[in-house]
């Protein structure tokens, strides 16, 4: 008995020693302001309202400065052991894979792969933390001065997790690419220090995520006010979150009988078996809890990335 217990303890210790949290992906994107200022935008008519969105593909194909800045940031981050997701490469591979997927057929029946409109819509360049870069050049006579800004934004919570900005000294001699290179290099230390604090907070207090809860409009009569053993369904979800989040930390920002928005949900970084945990896995645990008696509610979980998931109540 003692031997079995010792072996189990050793196994658990080994699992925890080798377990790793899911690494967030980072990608450099030009800020909306920069895209607007440099004309890399697309305008379309959205039900009578003219909307402007950044055209990253055009920006990466035409701006030499942007390519130089993103490459420099990428090489500095790779040097710090955190290689970035390359936006140009991601856009290219999405386009190539879409064509390839359309051509794939099964050998037996010649069937093509299933794809819903949602699947198609989701084929975009995504990352967990977006590094938004902006710069502006002020010219006074022969003098050039660069103002540089780099902001790391969490794609799910929208929070700025790191930032660095500053205006360089006016220069007579140096060309713009050199001034930009200096700015990128000099601001990276402070930026990485803030990013490291964010990661340390995450490793200590759990990953900060968002959970959306919605109800299928299927006429089943189940909504978040439905009662189970004297408790409304929303209270059941609240209690489950309180029991399963790190230090019971979450914030119900908004809720009606049809939806609930949980923000600042601090989920543990690891599953009990030592595997890395993300919001999808966490929401799946909630779904499995609700599918058991006394609730027996079927639910669907839709993955929205490392830090966000949607739970739709009522059916799959």
């Amino acid at each position, binding site marked *: 008995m003692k031997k079995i217990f010792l072996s189990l303890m050793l196994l658990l210790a080994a699992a925890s020693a080798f377990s790793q949290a899911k690494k967030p992906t980072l990608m450099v994107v030009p800020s909306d302001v920069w895209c607007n200022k440099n004309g890399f935008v697309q305008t379309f008519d959205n039900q009578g309202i003219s909307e402007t969105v950044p055209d990253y593909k055009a920006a990466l194909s035409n701006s030499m400065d942007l390519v130089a800045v993103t490459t420099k940031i990428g090489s500095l981050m790779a*040097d710090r052991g955190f290689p970035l997701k390359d936006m140009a490469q991601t856009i290219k591979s999405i386009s190539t894979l879409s064509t390839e997927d359309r051509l794939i057929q099964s050998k037996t029946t010649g069937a093509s792969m299933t794809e819903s409109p949602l699947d198609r819509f989701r084929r975009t360049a995504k990352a967990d933390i977006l590094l938004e870069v902006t710069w502006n050049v002020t010219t006074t006579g022969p003098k050039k001065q660069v103002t540089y800004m780099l902001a790391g934004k969490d794609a799910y919570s929208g929070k700025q997790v790191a930032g660095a900005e500053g205006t360089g000294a006016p*220069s007579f001699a140096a060309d713009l690419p050199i001034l930009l290179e200096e700015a990128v290099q000099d601001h990276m230390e402070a930026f990485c220090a803030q990013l490291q604090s964010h990661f340390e907070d995450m*490793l200590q207090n759990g990953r900060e995520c968002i959970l959306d809860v919605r109800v299928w409009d299927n006429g089943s009569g189940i909504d978040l006010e439905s009662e189970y053993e004297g408790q409304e369904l929303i209270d059941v979800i609240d209690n489950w979150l309180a029991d399963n989040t790190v230090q019971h930390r979450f914030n119900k920002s908004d809720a009606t009988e049809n939806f609930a928005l949980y923000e600042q949900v601090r989920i543990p970084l690891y599953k009990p078996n030592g595997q890395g945990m993300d919001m999808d896995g966490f929401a799946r645990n909630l779904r499995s809890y609700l599918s058991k008696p006394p609730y027996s509610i079927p639910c669907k979980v839709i993955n929205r990335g490392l830090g966000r998931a949607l739970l739709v109540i009522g059916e799959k």
Partner: protein
Amino acid sequence: MLKTRSYRLLAYVAMALMLVVNVAAKDKKTVVEPSAYEITGAGSGTEGTCLVKVYVYGNATDAAIKRAAVHGVIFRGFSGTSSGASQPAMASESLEETYRDFFKSFLDEKGACQNYASIVPASYERIKTQKGVKVGAVVQVMRAALRKELEKQEIIKSLSSGF
């Protein structure tokens, strides 16, 4: 006679106590005295390096200037780069005390810190102040390599640690 002996014994005990307190106080001192030098940015270095201007009080040698530059980059950080960016310290000051043995040999004037810094030629300066003479020079510090060494020694964490 007995009284004299007691006084003598008391004096010995007091002296021993003072010695212990003195040794303890010396132990708590940082490896490089913070007041011994000044550090500020001196433009932008090439990738993986930084340029700093260091002033060391007293008739400082090249080794003392380089040691101060490395100490400043690790524990103080600096501002005054040409791009307007301030450089944070690599490690908190308390780590100097925690890893005292490592830093004592690393930051010695003949220590490994000398391999991470080089003085820019013709950048020496000698200024007379009220506190005495201070000697300054522009030093290029190999920041990326220095960071990697501290990460290897597990004194600071890498950005990807924990993932």
